């Protein structure tokens, strides 16, 4: 009979950029169960909404997490705008979309680097992060910040991109697309990568839905669900289609993200072609009264922004349900049956963001 043991994994582990702990129940080297625990970086940021003017709170929403910063600012602003019935200028919606897609590329490149590092493929890790730097430079040139962009405000955006800047973005993504080609080929065709990822951590479509998976984790299991299809911001003018794979393994999750990078380039290009002239923000009068559940597609998956206003400048409640909160239960499901050596890689393939999850 196999020997049963419990192995603590994390919160500090070379493969984990942020602290998360798992109690792994093993039978010999096979994982038969896992109990996740978080709570090392909880900051109570949702509660601050009761003490900050709803317009000031954008700066806090953006600081929930560095990688998802632009999306959090946008999700919060869009939910408040829905409550207040504010019609955001079309140009502002296009600008939000362009920054959001750049954020997706940035997030996926960061993840690809971490994945390569977890596999011990150092040159691929460095190449992925070298390319990521170019996106950070684009952020710097267009928004003035490399991580926290601070471009969103209730009623629109704070910064515009002039014609020269938009042309610069087009040239940069053209170069980046060319440079991405060998990286994509290596991730998809290299023998070492395939042998580590293929058939590992399979999540069936049924299990993905039952366990509440979102984002690339869900789409890699064959479910065509991408919140951008709802048409918020400028997505209703752009050609968005969910990118899906059907194998549900680590390789499929990697493939979905690689194809999403190329899709983001195409969306940025299309948005730059179609962006209209006009104002970038409207003045905001009054205070929010009412509630709204806003859904947006963050790089890691569907995020929910709930706001409830009482007619004063302080909101009653802001709730952020992040993609990682939804992807932890499916991750536990995926771990069952895998080998102990595959655990770090498998955790990485949901692209966990613990700062967001704990807020």
């Amino acid at each position, binding site marked *: 009979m196999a020997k049963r043991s419990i192995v603590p994994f994390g919160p500090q582990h070379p493969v984990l950029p942020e602290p998360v702990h798992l109690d792994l129940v093993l039978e010999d080297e096979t994982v038969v169960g896992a*109990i996740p*625990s*978080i*709570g*090392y970086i*909880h900051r*109570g940021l*949702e*509660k601050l909404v009761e003490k900050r003017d709803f317009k000031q709170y954008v700066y806090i929403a953006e600081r929930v997490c560095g990688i998802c910063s632009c999306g959090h600012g946008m999700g919060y602003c869009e939910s408040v705008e829905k409550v207040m019935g504010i019609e955001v200028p079309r140009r502002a919606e296009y600008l939000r979309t362009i920054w959001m897609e750049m954020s997706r590329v940035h997030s996926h490149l960061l993840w690809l680097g971490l994945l390569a590092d977890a596999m011990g493929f150092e040159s691929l890790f460095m190449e992925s992060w070298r390319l990521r730097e170019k996106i950070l430079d684009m952020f710097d040139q267009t928004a003035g910040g490399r991580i926290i962009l601070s471009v969103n405000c209730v009623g629109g955006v704070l910064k515009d991109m002039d014609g020269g800047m938009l042309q610069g973005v087009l040239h940069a993504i053209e170069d980046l697309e060319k440079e991405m080609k060998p990286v994509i080929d290596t991730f998809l065709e290299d023998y070492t990568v395939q042998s580590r990822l293929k058939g590992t951590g399979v999540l069936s479509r049924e299990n993905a*839905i*039952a*366990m*509440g998976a979102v984002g690339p984790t869900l789409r890699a299991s064959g*479910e*065509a*669900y991408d*919140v951008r*299809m*709802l048409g918020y911001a400028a997505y209703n003018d752009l050609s968005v289609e969910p990118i899906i794979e059907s194998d549900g393994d680590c390789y499929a999750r990697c493939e979905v993200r690689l194809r999403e990078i190329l899709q983001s380039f195409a969306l940025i290009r299309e948005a730059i072609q179609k962006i209209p002239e006009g104002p970038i923000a409207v003045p905001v009068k009054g205070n929010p009264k009412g*509630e*709204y*559940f806003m*859904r947006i597609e963050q790089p890691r998956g*569907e995020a*929910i922004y*709930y706001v*409830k206003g009482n007619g004063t400048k302080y909101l*009653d*409640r802001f*709730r952020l*349900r992040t993609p990682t*909160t*939804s992807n*932890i*239960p*499916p991750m536990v499901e995926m771990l069952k049956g895998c080998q102990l050596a595959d655990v770090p890689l498998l955790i990485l393939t949901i692209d966990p963001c613990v700062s967001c999850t*704990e807020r």
Partner: protein
Amino acid sequence: MDDRNEIKKITMAELFPLVIEMKAKHWRLVQICAVSIEHGYEMSYSFCKNEEYRMVTLRLEIDAEETIASITQIYPCAFLQENEAAELFGVKIQNINPNYHDKLYRIDEVAPFKKKE
């Protein structure tokens, strides 16, 4: 709310039958949110039908001392969000599986998000 994002007010007796119905029809659990209101809490359980992008939120109002049953028996993935509501707001939720007993976020203060009298 728009036509793909609706809120339905329900009673305590309706919660379980409706959640079971959602599960049987393959709705995905999207989120659980607690809000402090006068005399108690407002609990929102959101579900999504992925093919239609439709989201329905079941809204339940409970008194501060009232206990609600966990839905982790029906949706096992609810455990993180139910533990969070219990720890941060002090919502009394019975039979959460697994139950972190107010140690999900490892904080000292009891129910820090609960409205102070």
